[in-house]
């Protein structure tokens, strides 16, 4: 093992080690945040689809007489 480095030289190594940890954490959190924002966008999209479906209910089925006529044709 080498003799202990002086503070001014050791400081940059210690700072680099802690910055690496911080950077890893920040990159991970940033990636997760982008995934969460994608999920949020999808939630908004799905909510819009649900609203549209609620606003335009599907047309009711034709009465039985009409259905029989269509079948005969």
């Amino acid at each position: 093992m080498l003799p202990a480095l002086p503070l001014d030289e050791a400081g940059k190594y210690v700072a680099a080690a802690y910055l690496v940890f911080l950077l890893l954490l920040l990159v991970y959190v940033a990636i997760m945040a982008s995934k969460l924002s994608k999920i949020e966008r999808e939630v908004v999209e799905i909510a819009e689809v649900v609203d549209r479906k609620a606003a335009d209910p599907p047309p009711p089925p034709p009465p039985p007489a009409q259905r029989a006529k269509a079948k005969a044709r």
Partner: protein
Amino acid sequence: MLVLTGAFAMVFFYAPLDADQGFVQKIFYVHVPMAIVALFGFVGGGICAVMYLRTRETKWDMRSYVTIHLSVILAVGVLITGSIWARASWGHWWVWDEPMLVSFLIVFLLYATYWPLRFSLEDKEKQARYASVFAIVAGAFVPLNFTAVRMAEQYIHPETFATTTGGMPGKFALTFVVALIGMTLLFFTLVKYEMASKHATFRLRALRRKLAGDDDDDLMLTGRSAAPQL
């Protein structure tokens, strides 16, 4: 995050300077807790894999996947901070005849094959089964590897818990324990965070299929992916 911030404050304002290494020894408080949590994470991934094989519940495969994922990220941090510490202490970025460094690199490379293994299998059930077997075997290798390194006769890597020299002095030990607790809490928080994100993604995908009028479960799987499907 609060505990970890407190721990790092203790590192610089409470823990004394090491007599041998001086200020460089401060790297120990981020490097070693990361290494311990990563190694326990690998073992935890193996335990979750055992639970998956016993129950066949997908949630255990997901837990195993997320735990291993975060442990690999921490392992990257361990390798980089270890390399910086090696440069400051020994004058070299990497020392190939140092058992602890090389064994940790082997463990990291072993787990780096986890994603290609998962991605190579299209069938989701098979993927989960094979990945679980891998996680169990690799998880068992981690403590064996660590014990082997400890038993190695000639090594120069500093010990965290020395068995013959009485361990660390009080202030060093307290700072280290707080840093370890902080790192562990951070790990569990990130596991929960990622699990919640994955659950939300799959629930949304299922909802989207349902809204599109397609309730077929098989169609929920969109393309090949290394991640488990719920």
